């Protein structure tokens, strides 16, 4: 039985996507948890690994195709340069609201005590090595390890 009144004590956030809007959503949620005194850990898997890949993390894009909320015809979204244009517009808007870039955001997260983990299976699949990844990550772990780290009352898990 749960006797902690439903209070959230730890957020376990799984990031499986590498599009800028999803990466930011996960980062804001993790940082927001720490700002409220809630522990936070992140598990980067599949395309989510791009957010912690040294050479890729500064080049993430928003998705212009297959995203109806962009209000852009799919054919147009697929034209060369459109994705880059949409991304640069979004980055400008984000800077206006004091949103850090991906690398700076990772620094904020690690300084705030967010633990970052890379998924072993996805690392193997993409042939990434730990040296390829952002220095602030804790380790390369399995899904089982991640579940073990999630133990405890008041833990919530989120898949993005």
């Amino acid at each position, binding site marked *: 039985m749960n006797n902690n009144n439903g209070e959230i004590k730890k957020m376990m956030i799984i990031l499986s996507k590498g599009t800028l809007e999803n990466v930011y959503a996960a980062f804001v949620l993790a940082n*927001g948890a720490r700002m409220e*005194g809630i522990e936070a850990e992140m598990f980067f898997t599949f395309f989510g690994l791009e957010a912690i890949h040294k050479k890729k993390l500064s080049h993430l894009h928003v998705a212009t195709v297959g995203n109806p909320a962009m209000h852009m015809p799919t054919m147009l979204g697929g034209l060369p340069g459109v994705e880059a244009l949409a991304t640069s517009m979004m980055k400008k808007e984000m800077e206006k609201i*004091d949103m*850090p870039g991906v690398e700076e955001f990772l620094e904020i997260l690690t*300084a*705030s005590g967010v633990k970052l983990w890379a998924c072993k299976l996805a690392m193997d699949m993409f042939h990434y090595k730990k040296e390829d990844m952002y220095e602030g990550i804790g380790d390369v772990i399995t899904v089982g390890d991640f579940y073990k780290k999630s133990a405890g009352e008041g833990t919530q898990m989120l898949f993005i």
Partner: protein
Amino acid sequence: MEKIIAGKSIAVNEEGYLTRFDQWDENIGETLAGEANIQLSPRHWEVLTYLQNEFKKEVPLSIRKVGKSGVVDIKEFYQLFPVAPLKTATKIAGIPKPASCI
């Protein structure tokens, strides 16, 4: 609503934040810090003074801004105020809770 802090009746909101900064003094800061289980050191006071100055200049506060302030970095900010640093520090400083998400 009113709350007795350090022997004085102080105007606070439902979360315990002072609603009138002019009622704040260092004793109140010490008492509010005690309620948050924090023993204030000179480093704490440097950060609290910085936050109050930003408030007086009407600059909206965020973790990112505090980290770039040159007064304290984010890691130390979390060491000084381990649980919800921006919320806790602004409460002790007698200024409103920042509405920032980052």
